[in-house]
């Protein structure tokens, strides 16, 4: 990976602002290099099993319109099981608990909002 660590020289507010912008540029640089270095592989998005078709194929070709109906009306067939994934939310962890029964629509979805654990600090 080829990148630079941006440094400020004055420490005032404007300096910190410029620093953030430079950090964004460096992050972008790292991401582009990571994409280039990613080994080629067959995945569900390259075989088309989970990828929406371009609009002109949906309206202009029978395979496109069939794929659209299978993906949108029937849904992506996710293997049976359950998963918990989280991402950064505005006030903490935003979590998704998804249960699949192997069909096109999820069996259950639970969202764990970032505000939820704060409630435990309140007197009941």
């Amino acid at each position, binding site marked *: 990976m080829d990148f630079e660590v941006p440094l400020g020289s004055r420490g005032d507010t404007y300096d910190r602002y410029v620093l953030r912008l430079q950090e964004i540029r460096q992050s972008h640089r790292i991401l582009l290099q990571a994409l280039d270095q990613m080994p080629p592989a067959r995945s569900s998005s390259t075989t088309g099993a989970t990828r929406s078709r371009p609009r002109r194929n949906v309206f202009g*070709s029978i395979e*496109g319109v069939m794929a659209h109906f299978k993906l949108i*009306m029937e849904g992506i067939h996710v293997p049976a099981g359950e998963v918990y994934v989280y991402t950064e939310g505005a006030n903490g962890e935003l979590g998704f608990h998804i249960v699949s029964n192997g069909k096109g629509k999820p069996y259950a979805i639970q969202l764990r909002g970032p505000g939820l654990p704060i409630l435990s600090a309140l007197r009941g």
Partner: protein
Amino acid sequence: MSDAGAINTGGGQPGAAKGQAQIPAPPKLVKVLVDGVEVDADSRDNLIEAARRVGVAIPYFCYHPRLSIAGQCRMCLVETSDAPGRLVPGCQVRVKEGLKITTNTPAVKDNQRGCMEFHLINHPVDCAICDQSGECKLQDTTWSTTTSLPHPYVQADQAQAEILGPQVVYDAERCIMCTRCVRFMDEIAQEPQLAVVQRGSHSLISIFPGQPLDSQYSGNTVDICPVGALLNRDFRFQSRVWFVNKSPSVCTGCSNRLQRLRGEPRNVIYRLLRAATKR
């Protein structure tokens, strides 16, 4: 090819389904290998049925367990140890002791993709207005066999939907000429009111002049049609398949189990289907 219509190659043995072979000896258990998995198959099974026993789905359109074998659609071609390097139709070839069936080689997949291209080349882009959409064998098979990018669509003569009888309407542009309906009327209903007319890419299913499709069994041709070519006039444009709930029921007119299709928003019974006719 298309005027082959109904070749009566199956049936014969009492109690055997039409798709099963004419074997004079009583059925026995034979061991075959489907993609390396050992299967105890019935000696009357064809390769499709033997593979189905272990959950391997060989795609097909024209084959139906209760009808004679036509070999029209060429989708079920697989490789066997009897004919290495060649593809054999899984609907017509019977199992035998020790036969190795391979359904996932590049040659088999290539054939399936090629056949799908031919089946789809004149197919109109009208899933959005087609009653079959959602329970269409063509849709399901395209989805499971085709991963390539779409090929150019060749605009065929736009055939108008034709009313064949009191219950059935026929849309020739969606028809893939599997001849299931023709064979059904010949063999099961025993009222041969349907036929293949014209030749080659112009061929289509038709009734005879002055003789509508008015058999008591005419509605069943809609059930066995794998695509949206034969449609029920009752159900046509009434609801989408994914908006109705299926629930088991009992037929009040015969001894068969039924599936009742109920519309969720208005609680209307849209149609009655025989359980497990769609295969």
